[in-house]
């Protein structure tokens, strides 16, 4: 590769990815706003004395921001699915448990902070960074172990074999963490000790037009943290030698091996990076929701998988796009369905699956995926 000027570097690794994220957010928010108003046209008053269009107008900024927050969490988990799928053509069913482990590690770290009275004395940025990085590290190492123990010996076996193994790993992980929690504290509901901590819980009012939206500080932490990590990932995959190795292996494992790339090491690295992102997302997510359990991975994991498929599985940009879009869709559905007596929010989860099924039927390669016919 030729030497690049600083301006070029800035564009490739800073401006372009940032612009991409912004475009994805703005695009999905715009389309969904149109759809929401479309529904409001069809059903102006889903309940007596509730004018849907007014409600949407009032809630719009809030819906967009919560959509971005969920979207980034999904995107960070989806990256793990998509990167592993890219190199191994294998759905790591246990990836959702890496997210769960991350959220549990985040809890443990904050518990230490709280016990050492560091929560109020240390700088919040430092605290968050330590928690997120340790969650990422633990989940990343766990992912590598998982691959080494349960997947690598099965490479080359029929497709269903590693998938079933992954289901087993996922189940085992949930109960393993449960057992650890049962032994250490005899309780499965892990509440982050953040209540009453101002930098994490005091709402931040944000004036948009004439309406005030109360932001949670943790939402901002998620957005900033995710953006920073995604920028790093983009640099890592597209700008470093190791990243080139990952791309080469996902193009063609055999040829990459012949070209002198240590395929096993690259696969382990992919699992590490994917797992670390999942774990970091878990810690960020835990800070935001406050309480996590060993079962917390299931739904975010499943939805992140849907996001990966929506964006085009195997594509890193696709995971970002899919995550943000799905987060946004969910946030809007929550905001609008609440006014419909028959549906209500109870069915939000079902709609995510409906999205998955629709994509798989009409565009199985996802939004950004390339259509590949099976070679005959």
């Amino acid at each position: 590769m030729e030497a690049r000027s600083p301006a070029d570097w800035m564009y490739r690794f800073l401006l372009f990815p940032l612009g991409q994220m912004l475009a994805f957010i703005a695009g999905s928010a715009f389309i969904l706003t149109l759809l929401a108003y479309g529904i409001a046209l069809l059903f102006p008053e889903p309940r007596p004395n509730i004018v849907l269009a007014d409600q949407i107008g009032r809630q719009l900024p809030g819906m967009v921001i919560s959509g971005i927050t969920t979207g980034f969490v999904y995107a960070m988990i989806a990256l793990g699915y998509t990167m592993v799928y890219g190199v191994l053509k294998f759905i790591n069913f246990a990836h959702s448990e890496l997210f769960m482990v991350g959220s549990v590690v985040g809890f443990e770290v904050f518990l230490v902070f709280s016990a050492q009275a560091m929560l109020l004395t240390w700088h919040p940025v430092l605290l968050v960074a330590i928690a997120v990085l340790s969650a990422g590290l633990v989940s990343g190492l766990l992912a590598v172990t998982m691959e080494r123990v349960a997947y690598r010996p099965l490479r080359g076996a029929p497709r269903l074999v590693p998938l079933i193994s992954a289901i087993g790993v996922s189940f085992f992980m949930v109960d393993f963490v449960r057992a650890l929690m049962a032994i250490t504290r005899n309780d499965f509901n892990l509440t982050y000790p953040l209540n009453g901590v101002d930098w994490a819980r005091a709402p931040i009012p944000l004036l948009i037009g004439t309406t005030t939206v109360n932001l949670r500080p943790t939402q901002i932490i998620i957005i900033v943290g995710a953006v920073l990590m995604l920028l790093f990932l983009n640099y890592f995959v597209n700008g470093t030698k190791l990243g080139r190795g990952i791309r080469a292996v996902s193009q063609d494992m055999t040829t990459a091996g012949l070209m002198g790339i240590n395929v096993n090491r690259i696969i382990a690295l992919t699992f590490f990076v994917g797992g670390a992102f999942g774990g970091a997302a878990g810690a960020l997510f835990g800070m935001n929701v406050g309480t996590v359990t060993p079962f917390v991975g299931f739904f975010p994991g499943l939805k992140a998988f849907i996001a990966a498929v929506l964006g085009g599985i195997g594509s890193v940009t696709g995971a970002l796009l899919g995550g943000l879009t799905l987060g946004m869709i969910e946030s809007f559905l929550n905001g609008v369905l609440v006014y419909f007596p028959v549906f209500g929010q109870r069915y939000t989860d079902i709609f995510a699956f409906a999205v998955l099924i629709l994509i798989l039927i009409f565009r199985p390669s996802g939004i950004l995926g390339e259509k590949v016919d099976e070679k005959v």
Partner: protein
Amino acid sequence: MTAIPSSLSPLAALRRLYRQPLIAGGVLLAYVALALLLLLNLDRRDVWFPQYTMLVFPLIVFAPFLVLESPLPTLAKGLSLALLLGVAVPLIGIYDSTYLELMIQISIFSALALGLNIVVGFAGLLDLGYIAFFAVGAYIWAVFTSVADTIFRTGFEFAPLTIGGNTLIAGFNVAPMAVAGTGLITVGSITLPLHAFYLFIFFGVLLAAVAGILLGLPVLRLRGDYLAIVTLGFGEIIRVLFNNLGEPGNITNGAQGLHGVMQPGSAFLIDPVNGIAGVMGVTLRTPAPVASQMLFYFLAIGIVGLIILLAQRLDNSPIGRAWTAIREDEVAAIAMGVPLVRMKLLAFATGAACAGAVGVLYAAKQTFVSPESFSLLQSINILAMVIVGGMGGIKGALLGASIVTLLNLHVLTNFALQINALRNIDYVIPAGSLFLTLALVTALVLYIIWRSTRSIYDAGQQLRSRLTGSVITLVLAGLLATRIVDFHIADWPSQLTPDKYQRFVFGILLVLMMLFRPEGLLPSARRKLELHREETVHEAEDIPDLDQRKTDDDFAAGR
């Protein structure tokens, strides 16, 4: 295998001896007699009862499989099976109905495993939402006969549907359809006696099959691993639906579930049960539940028998061959005239139908149905049965169902009971036994590490992996060993109840099966080939192209 010639090995000599039907028959008879003797002599008041029953009852459950695998002539096998399942088990059931309950559960799960085996084992479609069809069957009986206030009992009114001020569908009222708890079922203007239960088994079959087709249609074009996740999603959708259909119109009574579900009449069995109990010298305080259990037991093994017949006939037919072909190579199969989607739908629907049938049975037996009984955990349980036994085989599915159900409902439960029993007498496990357990577990883990690295062809890497794995294990074990002291069972964490840790057990079980025996314990011959095929696949995929230049030369030379 070992290099020792088989004629010299004592094990092989014994095996040869066992091949003679008479000797095998004697051994089996002794085995069953011993198992019965042990079982009937257990004392419920003994502190160690849970542990004993945990070990002894499985001996009875495995007896039919030993008979099946024995060299007995077919007629003798059939007779022994009939005696075991038709006489011995009911007698044990009268002696202690918990065992009969376990046998009913094993039969129900056998039916489910056989059904899923059609989908996963025969057609190669990984369905992670299979339990949904079981739920469909269970709910079809429960919504009509539960005493809960569903719309079928109270009648309901449809609010008019309006869009933008225009009425699309006018509102209407529906009269109550079912009158539950009266011994009669009223559907519309038809009143049916309780024997309609048997009719509902067929409804369950039909409805589940239809659900299978409806769910299958959009997803069966997908590749295997996508299919797994989508079916998982479908399973969850059905569960969420049942959870939420309690309002606005109460169809399923939501998360509380439907209670007071009716059972088919079993009064005619009370006298025979009492009579047999009298002969055995057992007094039954409440014979009615035992009679009803007896009915469900025979119904369940009857359904299992029918499904076995169904599976055998399907496997041995153009349909079965088409499924195998699809499993092996979809493109080749469709090019050879096998209609992919139709055949896959057929597998999905027949598999679902099996679940629907036992679903109806299950609802009546439990008299209670709630969405929580139909979770992903249950789907994975059934998958574990198919995998442990061996995908694609009928005996395998039955063995898998027996093992997993025993683990789930017998071993883990009794483990928990044992802990509680010991807690009450403040039992102390000596450090010595804990140390021994740790040593055994460590040895097992080391063995697994050495076995699982066998597939690595690079000798250097294999050695490195083995060494790293072993060192990590030994260091961890060493660290744990220093912490071992006499353990008071009273200190056992109350949340660490083994019967709530099925995921732990089945997770490990699935991984170990995939690593060491993907074809299952009783593999079908073909599956065994498929799952150990590394050697031939490459050969088939990389057919060397003819040397292009050579043909060009031939061409230029005008040959």
